[in-house]
């Protein structure tokens, strides 16, 4: 695959070629002495003994080949070794840990270099799917009475607040927002959906979590003092997602109770679901039963099975 010493030297270094010249020089026997490199010679030139006999040329080539193919074998061996190493590492949430580290590296890079408040493209209401696709009912298999439904909020600033158990009326009292965005499923399909509901950021401002500093929360001006994460789960705990606070406060992250201008249907997550266009659809949890503010990263159903936790777009 390569000349000798290529590990120590840059690929197009002249000294790499000297190794060849040396090899070919000795291969040519004693009769022909290769001339010294020209002073002005670009360093990709090598000395080749033009007077060598055919047999000598073939011998030189064999020597070169042996060396290069040995390097090739080392490279192939390293490749296979690397592959074996990768797939045998201790799993970290469903994938060998080097892959998990890579996903985390990509997340950090994204959060450092992208503008995470960037808005998702919006569409005209007419472009929205008339009958949005239903995909997944994990956490919604149990008997469920929407009338009995309450939204439990944990980690509030005021532990004794009566708001710990909310009804849909509480959510509907927040400013109503409608948006038409594209839901991107991690499976690869996408769909334009017309959502209606309240901004999660408005909800968090109304029902603020306990701050890191212990000061009174100020969601608009001091978001960095809020806990780092928001966790959500279905009433039966069968499906659960974790969101970074930054994405939770994104203006297009909605607590959604309408689709196409009508109340949510049970299979789309009635009475209340999340619509978060800055993440894969897996994060848009249906039938929210609990919202938990926390500084510890909440569990995430799909991230536990090998998927990227952040899943940010």
């Amino acid at each position, binding site marked *: 695959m390569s000349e000798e010493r290529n590990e120590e030297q840059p690929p197009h270094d002249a000294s790499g070629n000297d190794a060849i010249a040396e090899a070919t020089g000795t291969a040519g026997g004693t009769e022909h002495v290769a001339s010294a490199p020209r002073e002005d010679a670009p360093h990709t*030139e090598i000395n080749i003994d033009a007077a060598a006999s055919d047999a000598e040329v073939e011998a030189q080539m064999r020597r070169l080949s042996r060396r290069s193919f040995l390097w090739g074998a080392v490279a192939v061996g390293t490749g296979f070794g690397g592959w074996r190493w990768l797939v045998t590492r201790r799993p970290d949430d469903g994938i060998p840990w080097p892959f998990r580290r890579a996903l985390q590296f990509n997340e950090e890079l994204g959060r450092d270099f992208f503008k995470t408040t960037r808005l998702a493209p919006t569409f005209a209401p007419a472009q929205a799917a008339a009958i949005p696709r239903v995909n997944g009912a994990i956490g919604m298999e149990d008997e469920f009475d929407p009338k009995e439904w309450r939204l439990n909020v944990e980690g509030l600033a005021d532990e004794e607040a009566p708001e710990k158990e909310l009804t849909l009326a509480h959510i509907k009292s927040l400013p109503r927002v409608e948006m038409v965005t594209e839901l991107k499923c991690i499976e690869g399909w996408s769909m334009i959906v017309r959502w209606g509901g309240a901004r999660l950021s408005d909800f968090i401002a109304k029902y603020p979590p306990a701050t890191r500093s212990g000061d009174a929360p100020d969601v608009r001006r001091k978001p960095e003092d809020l806990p780092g994460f928001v966790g959500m789960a279905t009433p039966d705990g069968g499906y659960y997602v974790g969101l970074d606070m930054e994405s939770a406060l994104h203006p297009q992250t909605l607590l959604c109770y309408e689709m196409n201008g009508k109340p949510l249907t049970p299979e789309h997550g009635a009475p209340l679901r999340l619509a978060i266009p800055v993440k894969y659809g897996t994060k848009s949890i249906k039938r929210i039963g609990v919202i938990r503010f926390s500084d510890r990263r909440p569990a995430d159903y799909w991230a536990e099975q090998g998927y990227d936790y952040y899943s940010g*777009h």
Partner: protein
Amino acid sequence: MKRLEKKHPLAIRWFHWINFPVLMVMIWSGLLIYWANDVYGVRIGSRSLFQFFPDAFYKKFNLESRLAEGMAWHFLFMWIFAINGLLYVIYTAVSGEWRHLLPNRNTLREAWQVVLHDLRIRRQPLPRRKFNGAQQIAYTSVIVMGLGSLLTGLAIYKPIQFAWLTAFLNGGVLGVTGYNAARFLHFWLTVGYCLFFLIHVAQVARAGWNNFRAMITGYEVVQVEGDAPQPTRTAKASGDAVSPATPEAGAA
């Protein structure tokens, strides 16, 4: 008489042989991902000619229910694929190798002659150069395709951060727009790599051992005219357009 001649610089050989397994990993992990929503096929009107892929294909190659694994591999190896490709482009630009690779005004005509030659329609020998017109087109296209995969990949991976890329595709590709168009192009570019690979391997097999060995050792044994021993001279490493080369050199 015979002589050794430098053909492929060490850097290019490394880029080439690193790219090969990395692209294989990208295609394999891409299939693991594609399985989850395998919607593409070839249709004429309403008649389906071929569906990517029949269930037996996924079963045979154990590609089912491995979406998370596919994404994990894809998002790690994308870095190696992109960085290796970028270094290759920088190297060819700086070293002057691009002169052998980029098509010029004679390329199209010459490529057509190569096609006729390969189909045994035209008998005249091919131009004796490092890369002929057909190769220039193929090797340049595959780099442009690589850039295409990178851009459509970014549009799929970060569709909000790269919304401008997706918006660019809103013009539509064969009636597919936006995010779907990015995914559509990303898939068909991969089909393109597979076709490239098949033709490339067939051509290398045809060109023979000496040509293949040059991609590993960097050197080719060439037949030079006249058997009078010449005084020692230097051979241009990069293989000039005017330097003699074996007829096989033109094929792969």
